[in-house]
């Protein structure tokens, strides 16, 4: 069975600063990895995903993540955040096959202030 650990429950940063949201996973099989974002009172929206190939994955809104198999990590980064990036961010893992359910971490609240 897979599991996901998001190491920080809250990350406060100032506008235009860089940010890294950390995610580690545990699995006995190959996995797909995802980052989703949730704005207040909204559903989840896919930011980016790693399926195979290059370990550096670029997503929407200037976010990117790097898959590190040896460290079982998939950290999310953005070089310069905006106020509008304030949201909850979820890392998720699924089995290495299409259409299996995503298992989510507990989430990280990113708060960007001016």
């Amino acid at each position: 069975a897979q599991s996901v650990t998001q190491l920080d429950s809250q990350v406060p940063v100032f506008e235009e600063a860089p940010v890294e949201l950390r995610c580690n996973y545990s699995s006995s099989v190959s996995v797909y990895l995802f980052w989703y974002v949730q704005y207040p009172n909204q559903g989840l929206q896919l930011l980016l995903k790693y399926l195979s190939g290059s370990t550096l994955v670029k997503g929407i809104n200037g976010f990117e993540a790097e898959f590190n198999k040896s460290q079982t990590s998939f950290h999310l980064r953005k070089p310069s955040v905006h106020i509008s990036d304030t949201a909850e961010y979820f890392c998720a893992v699924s089995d290495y096959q299409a259409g299996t359910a995503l298992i989510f971490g507990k989430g990280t609240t990113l708060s960007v202030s001016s």
Partner: protein
Amino acid sequence: DARVTQTPRHKVTEMGQEVTMRCQPILGHNTVFWYRQTMMQGLELLAYFRNRAPLDDSGMPKDRFSAEMPDATLATLKIQPSEPRDSAVYFCASGLATGLNTEAFFGQGTRLTVV
């Protein structure tokens, strides 16, 4: 604009009452997921369906919860009887399980309050 539609968006009910939440997956998607979100537990997978058949409902309390797909355009999640601890946001998501297609598209959620 294809999207997953959940109804109702908000529901307040008294303990012991039956609650039914509905989900219309994106047309053509063959996989439907139900998740529950709470502050304490985060996002928990309750059940999911492929081609309308349940694949996994191990996350769902069987004594009071039931999930069905009467047809390809409707998924339902029922709680009977409801309890205060069921208060949460319930999300439906759909996806198309082919090849490397793994993205799950989420609805806006149903916020359930049981008093």
